[in-house]
């Protein structure tokens, strides 16, 4: 795929030799290609690969050679990491809903993953990540499924993989994924808890609960799946479902009231229950017990009243207290050191320190390893730990710890040191915004970024050689190296073109990171204290990030800041969280838990005198709260309040409601910043025929250069440019599901354009036989949306352009020359202007993950649509292809205007993939940021990976390219000046001779 997107360098050299005419014709040609040359990759773009928060990890260090760890993550990634460096050997991203339940290694060469609620089992080749086989298991998705890879049990040369969940067990061959046998244990409501294999036997044991009070043990032959033995017993006070296998013949479970432990011993069809009295161990015990999953022979971990007790099980009714651990902590699973020895690790936080303890079952009182390391406080607490051992030169065991932190970062710790760390929280970005960098000040030395003159000249001479094709291969490599590490782009100050910025991202873990656009490095990061679990806020999560203060004219001494909004808990009525973070340093300036909930956030087009942007927060009770809370902002707000409206799209009720604001009747001082909503209008979609599928609005900060569109023959059309335009697409409820679930006759898609101030429907169009998924983007006066056409069995893209008919009469040149028109007078949406709509549809080959549109500083440059394709690439498509004025045979003047003849489908030019050969795995969103240079847009796309580049939809017409040889220009000028002097001297001489003749 890669090479097809990149043209070799020689093509450019050839092009450079061609004359002016060719260049001109290239400039005017219909398809402007924006492709990169192979050596331009990495100059303006960067691509970072992540995996997400690790859920499971399996080490593979037995063999000599590359040591690796195979991990599965919450972003549905299964990856193999280099244990020495943390780099990704390979990585596979599963589908969005294909959550990985478990991962293991089979046969020492396959990575086996169980996903989609235990219904899909896949094997990947360990060295390179190729998929070996896949098999689908018919399981009910209601129950939790687990994977068990049988070790050392050969059926022929094969090992079996057991998948169990609910009442069924599947045994699959690890060679080819064929189901060897399948056992449906014919008891209703059976929940298999554990499968295990007693030492060196042909039998596997399955233990589980039936209903809430019965305990079952099955002995199953692993060769055939035949049930050899089955025993059952019921316990009158019932179980809650949690159980922990302690020995091969002993299970400890929690009873139904979750207040006491029950040990269940089973041997030869005899099952004995034994209630364990906890008050012997814990003198003042009361309340509930939680059983912690500690897979360690003979050990139990229970949580009582927020402290954790480690207990040793000595017999069916005998427990011994080992250790008490306090929060925060993490356990690892058991690690077999030898045949009879096992070890596990306990990690404990002590402010900024982490204590590592490894215990083995020989001596639980003492540790075989005890280490303490200092941890960056911005990583939060430890969430998970996986351990692995190695044999030191003195034959003792050393341990590696793979640690997952609260901010989702992954670290490898060995011998009390962090060997490597990965910032994997960046795989789950929730929202992003940008900030300018500080202005370069006099006297502030920007360390080691300026070349001295000699080096500058040397570099340019090298470049010149390259242009003249005189450079040797070594020199070509040197040129490439110079270009790639160009320190110019990584400076920490603002640049003239506005390419250098900070991208401030908010991750799901509640961490805010600032990335430099030059190379994507993390400039600062902060784990927001307000978004961490605490007593006041048990389950916080991050929602959005907004620009809070951008000093331009006033408050110049202050740094810009961003507002992070979160919520305590998942309900809509849960209280909100506010945090204001300095954009330059990452310092938390202010942080508070709100008294109200957050259901809408409206950044207003108003700022107070310190240039803090006014925000309206609408809570679940439809009250609007104004921030920042100061009298100055209130004053500004009151001036504009009659003109501020808001609307709410209620998908469940199939309704859109518009509101205005009014002051509360009783004016308490505390309620000064709270406003009441007054319902103005509502649009109710008929629920039997329509269901809201998608809504889209214009970006608030989008800048439109002109209201007029000049069409062929110098005619003019006036765009209906309104910020308050809402695009809504509804689909027939029958066709709301997957593609193919409805017939073309049943499927209908309606597209609406709604004015959100007055609730007026400006336009409505119906697409017969079309269904979702719908993706839409609104910009200037147009909407582009993407959907599936069931009749044509193809995806389609439609464009609607909307024009203001009431302005169309402004065509008198003299009036315009003299300025006698009201085209720039403020308009009210209550004036109900007549609109005229043009639309057109085209086929489009790809299905789409997300859509965006380029944005430039002044809005002069033509637009490109950015389409996130199903292959996780970003395609740039000129808006000119989606022009409703396209026709099959455009007239001469239309051709001159640049209208492309109509074709039924939109072309996909391989060179217009802005991600060139790369893939932004798990692509979720694309953000466009205008640079100061009018021609250029910065594009930041994120998913599991991050990709940043800058694109110029109409080429960089306002700057010289990076390739431009200044040395050549300089030399030309010098030569010309020299020639002028020489010829002047010569002519003088000749003159003199003439005179003496």
């Amino acid at each position, binding site marked *: 795929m890669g090479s097809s997107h990149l043209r070799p360098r020689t093509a450019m050299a050839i092009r450079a030799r061609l004359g002016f005419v060719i260049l001109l014709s290239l400039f005017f040609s219909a398809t402007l290609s924006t492709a990169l040359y192979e050596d331009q990759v990495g100059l303006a773009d960067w691509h970072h690969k992540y995996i997400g928060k690790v859920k499971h990890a399996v080490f593979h260090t037995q063999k000599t050679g590359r040591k690796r760890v195979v991990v599965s993550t919450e972003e549905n990634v299964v990856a193999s990491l280099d244990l020495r460096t943390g780099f990704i050997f390979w990585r596979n991203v599963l589908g969005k809903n294909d959550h990985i339940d478990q991962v293991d290694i089979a046969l020492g060469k396959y990575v086996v993953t169980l996903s989609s609620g235990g219904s899909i089992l896949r094997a990947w080749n360990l060295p390179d990540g190729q998929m070996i086989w896949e098999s689908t298991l018919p399981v009910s998705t209601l129950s939790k499924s687990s994977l068990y890879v049988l070790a050392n049990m050969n059926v022929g040369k094969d090992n079996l993989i057991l998948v169990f969940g609910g009442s069924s067990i599947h045994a699959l061959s690890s060679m080819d994924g064929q189901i060897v046998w399948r056992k449906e244990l014919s008891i209703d409501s059976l929940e298999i808890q554990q499968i295990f294999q007693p030492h060196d036997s042909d039998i596997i044991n399955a233990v589980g609960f039936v209903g809430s009070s019965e305990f079952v043990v099955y002995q199953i032959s692993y060769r055939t799946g035949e049930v050899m033995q089955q025993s059952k017993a019921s316990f009158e006070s019932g179980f809650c479902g949690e159980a922990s296998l302690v020995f091969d013949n002993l299970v400890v479970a929690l009873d139904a009231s979750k207040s006491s432990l029950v040990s269940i011993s089973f041997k030869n069809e005899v099952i004995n229950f034994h209630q364990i009295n906890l008050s012997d161990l814990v003198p003042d015990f009361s309340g509930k017990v939680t059983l912690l999953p500690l897979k360690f022979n003979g050990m139990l971990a229970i949580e009582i009243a927020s402290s954790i007790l480690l207990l040793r099980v000595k017999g069916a009714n005998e427990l011994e207290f080992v250790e008490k651990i306090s929060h925060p902590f993490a356990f690892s699973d058991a690690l077999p050191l030898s045949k009879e020895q096992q070890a596990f690790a306990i990690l404990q936080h002590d402010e900024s320190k982490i204590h590592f303890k490894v215990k083995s079952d020989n001596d639980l009182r003492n540790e075989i390893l005890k280490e303490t390391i200092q941890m960056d406080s911005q990583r939060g607490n430890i969430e998970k730990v996986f351990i692995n051992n190695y044999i030191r030169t003195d034959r003792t065991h050393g341990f590696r710890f793979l640690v997952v932190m609260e901010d989702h970062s992954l670290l490898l710790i060995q011998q009390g040191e962090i060997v490597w760390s990965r910032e994997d929280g960046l795989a789950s970005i929730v929202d992003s915004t940008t900030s300018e960098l500080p202005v370069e000040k006099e006297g502030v030395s920007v360390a080691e970024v300026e070349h001295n003159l000699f080096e500058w000249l040397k570099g340019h001479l090298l470049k010149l050689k390259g242009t003249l094709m005189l450079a040797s291969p070594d020199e070509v490599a040197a040129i490439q190296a110079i270009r790639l590490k160009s320190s110019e782009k990584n400076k920490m100050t603002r640049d003239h073109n506005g390419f250098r910025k900070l991208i401030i991202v908010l991750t799901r873990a509640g961490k805010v990171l600032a990335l430099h656009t030059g190379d994507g490095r993390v400039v600062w990061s902060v784990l927001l204290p307000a978004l961490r679990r605490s007593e006041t806020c048990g389950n916080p999560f991050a929602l959005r990030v907004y620009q809070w203060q951008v000093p331009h004219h006033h408050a110049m001494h202050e740094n810009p800041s961003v507002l992070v909004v979160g919520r305590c808990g998942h309900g809509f009525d849960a209280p909100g969280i506010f945090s204001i973070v300095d954009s330059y340093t990452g310092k938390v300036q202010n942080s508070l838990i709100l008294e109200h909930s957050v259901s809408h956030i*409206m950044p207003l087009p108003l700022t107070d005198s310190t240039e803090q942007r006014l925000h309206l927060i609408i809570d679940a009770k439809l009250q609007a709260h104004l921030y920042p809370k100061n009298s100055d902002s209130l004053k500004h707000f009151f001036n504009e309040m009659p003109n501020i409206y808001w609307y709410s799209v209620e998908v469940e009720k199939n309704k859109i409601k518009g509101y205005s604001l009014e002051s509360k009747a009783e004016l308490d001082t505390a309620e000064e910043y709270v406003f009441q909503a007054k319902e103005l209008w509502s649009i109710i979609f008929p629920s039997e025929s329509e269901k809201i599928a998608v809504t889209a609005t214009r970006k608030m900060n989008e800048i439109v250069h002109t*209201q007029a569109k000049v069409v062929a023959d110098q005619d003019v059309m006036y765009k209906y440019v309104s910020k*308050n335009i809402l695009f809504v697409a509804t689909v027939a409820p029958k066709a709301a599901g997957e593609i193919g679930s409805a017939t073309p006759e049943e499927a209908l898609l309606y597209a609406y354009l709604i004015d959100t101030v007055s609730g007026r429907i400006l336009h409505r169009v119906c697409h017969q036989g079309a269904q979702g998924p719908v993706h839409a983007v609104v910009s200037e006066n147009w909407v582009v949306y993407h959907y599936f056409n069931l009749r044509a069995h193809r995806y389609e893209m439609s464009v609607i352009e909307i024009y203001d008919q009431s302005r169309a009469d402004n*065509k008198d040149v003299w009036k315009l020359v003299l300025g006698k028109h009201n085209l720039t007078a403020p308009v009210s949406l209550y004036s109900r202007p007549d609109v005229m709509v043009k639309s057109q549809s085209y086929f489009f080959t790809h299905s789409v993950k997300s859509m965006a549109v380029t944005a430039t500083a002044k809005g002069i440059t033509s637009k490109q649509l950015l389409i996130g394709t199903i292959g996780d690439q970003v395609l740039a498509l000129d808006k000119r292809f989606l022009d409703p004025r396209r026709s099959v045979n455009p007239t001469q003047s239309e051709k001159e205007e640049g209208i492309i003849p109509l074709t039924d489908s939109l072309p996909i030019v391989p060179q217009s993939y802005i991600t060139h050969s790369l893939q932004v795995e798990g692509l979720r969103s694309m953000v466009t940021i205008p640079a100061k240079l009018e021609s250029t847009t910065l594009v930041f796309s994120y998913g599991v990976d991050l990709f940043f580049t800058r694109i110029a939809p109409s080429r960089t017409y306002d700057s010289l390219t990076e390739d431009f040889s200044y040395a050549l220009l300089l030399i030309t000028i010098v030569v010309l000046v020299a020639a002028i002097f020489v010829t002047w001297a010569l002519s003088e001489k000749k003159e003199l001779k003439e005179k003496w003749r």
Partner: protein
Amino acid sequence: MEKGKGLARRWAVEFAENSSYSSSTSDVPDPIGFNRSASDPDDANASRQKKDAESAWKSQKAWEVAQAPFKNLLMMGFMMWMAGSTVHLFSIGITFSALWQPISALQGVGKVFEPYKDSKVDILAPKLLFIALNLAALALGVWKLNTLGLLPSHASDWVSSLPPAPEVEYSGGGLPIH
């Protein structure tokens, strides 16, 4: 070159006596009894005739000069037709030369008719014709400029950079954040 010449002729000493005449004619002195100032009536008559012929010739020449732009006009028209109506280097060059030529000609209208200036010759009419023809050429140039679309004669030329009208109302909201 010009400058050099000027330098060479900054001063000159004429050693010949009769310095009022050009050196070529003053080589030989006038014969005795010849009076340069005395006029011969016959000669005067002949010279009048000669003068008449000269003024006729001058007036004819002036008319010729006055009509010269007409040919130019035709050629320009042909060139413009050849150039087509799309904006590119050739058409722009031709149009601008078509505009420049009449303007420069109009600027030098006095100089053009300088040699034909005579008390007896009426050069006003040719001058007017000359000006009219050049104006016509200028008009042709402007017309060409317009056909190229380079004149702001359409509404679109005046509104294409008008910013969108500001809106009074502001509305926000959307889907509840989840």
